[in-house]
């Protein structure tokens, strides 16, 4: 392709996917079409302001924009729910029908007969897209039934709340260059962003002499950045932590000054670890049986961790998506405290790696006064619709920016739940498996086809509309504005401003440096964030935490009322049918997608065919060959998926990346390899997602 400089416009933007990064991209536009997606060349790349380099998901968006799965016109169901039978209709007809249904259900049954499900398809903007646009709409319309919970980080949030008074552990990336030991505990920054540049700074830290240890059932791509891989049985992290603590206590290595000054409740934990309460010392030998990690490796890890400073514990969000994930998260914080690294630059505990922050607080579009009257958990909403527990029942579902069937546990039940609805609206960019269960589907345009101001990672991005919406797609803002007009609150929703006019309004209100922002597409933050807990560590009395004691709570008063032990003890989670389904399944995020967003991008799909990871020993036992089509099944469902035989996963564990689109064949088997076909409706005690606590059996198709 020739670079015709003259007729190519270069328009900066950021992508709004559900991801722990927010990167800088630029769209090349010629004759009203995006011809290329790039990262802006010539930007400086230094430690204080590292480049915000996009990953393949962001860079591949041009192919995604042109996917045949894109919805271009409103469609109306003409066949059974879940089939491909739809006819195109025009916007007026589609809007009229949905407005009429909303009116009908509110009048007949009350607004809570409408279930609003939203998701993370489009994030960070001011309220024109995705969940913010629809939350706003319903806040003016009435009290609906909505979802709650955070499928990403629920248990991590619980521990942060109970133990630290809602302080979230983060590390300013350049501080990693001070670290001497970095423990990636189920943390995979090479494949999934927890901060744009976390993986890069870990690699730099390693070059400066830091040792990196990966604790994970799989040798993820982050293993390449590690010096040592410690395979661990999923869901047993607390056992390993207890054993490390046991070694420290036995050898008198715990930082007691820290525990005595900054924490409360440690005595109870110490008793547990040494076995003084239950007669079972949590020794490395005890932990070996549970975690499958050799006792010698545990002892070595314990000694290395306590004797190397600064040492930082970087847990990912995978381990806390197991049953009792609350215990896992509480145990991390406890261990980090005991290690004597809190407060050291490059040490302590962090869930993500962050950049300088901005001072700009962008406004958002205003909300109305209604709030949802009932909330059901987002990770297993299907269960609540099917078990009759909702009274009055929900009759209409309105799903926005969410592939709700696909990404919540127990996909087949979710599909049944939507089948049973009287009326379903889906509002999305793509013809997702969820859209197939709708009565009316509204087609939404993508990031490059609309303007917005996006905040993320401490920076402000100006997404100027690069091209016109494809087909007859519209923004969520436009759709809800039309509905709002029909339902009598048009002015409240829009203030008679278009999306473009609102963007200008926010720019003026914040006195943002217009020219700079519009030309470069971003204003980077300048303020170097304070170390986690810095104020508290400096003066725990004046800067006490918002916990009961003002200190870090090792014992948590909230635990008992939630059915959990007051200290972070190991609780075994036994599989329900260990003989029928003996293999432990994990369902991590793939580097090829952001959850299910991007599945429709054939460039990315073709990179690595979707296969189930299985250890050679488990494969051999079943006579399985590489790439062979397998049946994978449990009490929740069945799927067909080819095998990837690899040493990168421990024996007894299989891995199916989540996010591929579910595709049921005539016999009820999923041929799309959708991980949630095999996950169940259980939650952790406080309501977290437990999708890494599932078991399956695997066999050859040929049988």
């Amino acid at each position: 392709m020739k670079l015709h400089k003259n007729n190519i416009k270069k328009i900066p933007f950021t992508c709004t996917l559900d991801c722990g990064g927010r990167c800088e991209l630029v769209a090349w536009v010629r004759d009203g079409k995006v011809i290329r997606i790039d990262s802006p060349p010539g930007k400086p790349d230094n430690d204080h302001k590292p480049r915000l380099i996009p990953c393949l998901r962001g860079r591949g968006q041009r192919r995604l924009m042109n996917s045949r799965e894109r919805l271009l016109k409103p469609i109306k169901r003409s066949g059974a729910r879940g089939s491909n039978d739809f006819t195109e209709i025009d916007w007026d007809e589609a809007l009229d029908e949905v407005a009429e249904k909303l009116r009908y259900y509110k009048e007949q049954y009350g607004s809570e007969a409408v279930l609003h499900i939203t998701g993370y398809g489009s994030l960070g903007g001011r309220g024109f897209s995705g969940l913010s646009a629809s939350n706003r709409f319903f806040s003016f319309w009435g009290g609906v039934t909505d979802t709650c919970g955070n499928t990403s980080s629920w248990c991590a949030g619980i521990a942060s709340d109970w133990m630290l008074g809602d302080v979230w552990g983060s590390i300013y990336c350049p501080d990693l260059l001070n670290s001497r030991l970095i423990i990636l505990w189920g943390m995979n920054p090479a494949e999934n962003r927890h901060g744009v540049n976390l993986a890069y700074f870990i690699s730099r830290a390693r070059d400066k002499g830091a040792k990196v240890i990966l604790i994970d059932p799989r040798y993820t791509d982050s293993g390449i950045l590690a010096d040592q891989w410690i395979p661990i049985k999923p869901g047993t992290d607390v056992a390993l932590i207890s054993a490390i603590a046991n070694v420290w206590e036995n050898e008198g290595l715990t930082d007691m000054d820290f525990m005595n000054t900054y924490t409360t409740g440690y005595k109870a934990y110490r008793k547990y670890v040494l076995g003084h309460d239950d007669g079972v010392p949590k020794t490395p030998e005890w932990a070996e049986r549970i975690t499958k990690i050799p006792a010698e490796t545990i002892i070595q890890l314990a000694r290395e961790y306590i004797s190397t400073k600064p040492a930082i514990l970087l847990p990912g969000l995978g381990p806390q998506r197991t049953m009792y994930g609350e215990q896992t998260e509480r145990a991390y914080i406890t261990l980090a405290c005991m290690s004597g690294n809190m407060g050291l630059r490059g040490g302590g505990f962090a869930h993500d790696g962050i950049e300088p922050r901005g001072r700009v607080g962008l406004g958002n579009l205003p909300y109305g006064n209604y709030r949802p009257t009932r909330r059901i958990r987002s990770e297993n909403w299907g269960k609540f619709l099917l078990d009759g527990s909702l009274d009055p029942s929900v009759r209409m579902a309105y799903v926005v920016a969410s592939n709700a069937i696909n990404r919540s546990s127990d996909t087949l039940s979710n599909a049944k739940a939507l089948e049973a609805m009287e009326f379903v609206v889906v509002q999305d960019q793509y013809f997702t498996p969820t859209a197939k269960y709708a009565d009316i589907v509204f087609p939404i345009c993508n990031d490059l086809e609309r303007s917005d101001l996006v905040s993320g990672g401490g920076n402000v991005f100006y997404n100027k509309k690069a091209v016109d919406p494809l087909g007859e797609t519209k923004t969520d803002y436009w759709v809800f504005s039309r509905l709002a007009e029909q339902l009598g609150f048009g002015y409240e929703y829009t203030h008679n401003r278009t999306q473009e006019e609102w963007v200008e309004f926010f720019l003026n209100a914040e006195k943002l440096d217009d020219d700079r922002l519009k030309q470069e597409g971003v204003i980077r933050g300048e303020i170097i964030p304070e170390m986690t807990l810095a104020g508290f560590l400096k003066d725990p009395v004046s800067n006490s935490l918002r916990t009961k004691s003002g200190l870090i709570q090792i014992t948590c008063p909230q635990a008992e009322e939630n059915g959990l032990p007051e200290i972070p003890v190991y609780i075994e989670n036994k599989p329900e049918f260990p003989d029928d389904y003996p293999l432990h399944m994990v369902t991590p995020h793939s580097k090829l997608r952001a959850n299910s967003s991007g599945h429709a991008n054939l460039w990315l799909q073709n990179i690595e065919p979707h296969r189930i990871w299985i250890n050679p020993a488990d494969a051999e036992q079943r006579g399985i060959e590489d790439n062979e089509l397998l049946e994978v099944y449990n009490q929740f469902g069945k799927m067909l998926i080819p095998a990837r035989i690899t040493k990168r996963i421990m024996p007894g564990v299989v891995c199916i990346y989540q996010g591929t689109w579910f595709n049921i064949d005539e016999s009820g088997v999923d041929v799309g390899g959708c991980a949630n076909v095999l996950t169940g409706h259980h939650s952790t005690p406080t309501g977290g997602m437990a999708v890494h606590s599932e078991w399956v059996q695997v066999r050859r198709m040929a049988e």
Partner: protein
Amino acid sequence: MGSGSEDGRMNKQVFMIDLASCTGCYTCMVACKDRLNLQDDINVLKVDEEESGNYPDIKVVYRPQHCFHCEKPACTEACPVDAISKESDGFVKIDEEECIGCGECVEACPFDAIYFSDDDLPIKCDGCADEVGLGWKPVCVRSCPMRALDYLPLEEVNMQNRIQDTDFDDKGIGPRIVYLIRKE
């Protein structure tokens, strides 16, 4: 940075790929694909995954590969109609007008770096020659989130903590590539 030679000599820049920090994210592959507007099943920059060792002491190396614009290219030799040439900027270029689609170059390349596209013409990495000519780095280099790639004079390659990967067989034709691995 910069390419082109002031005095007409072949350009002495090399592709540098740091296998110690390449985590196999495939961003370079997608960036290249986007620039060349390749069809879904063709990549001229591919990334191979190499798994070795015994569980749990295994090792994984991701190896990006593309045309390395050799000093003595096998493809230029093989082409019966002289449609492939080593240019003054150091890049090896296939002239689409002259090419007859015989596929000899595809066969000849010992690195399997040339592919047939859907319109039955050979396609390969072009070194982002036009962008390098403007003073940019090739798109694979500047798209890498780990900063694991570069295109630069050989003497400027940063060898701190690194040694050259001697497992890579250069087939004696001078591919302009330096793979780095960690110095233990």
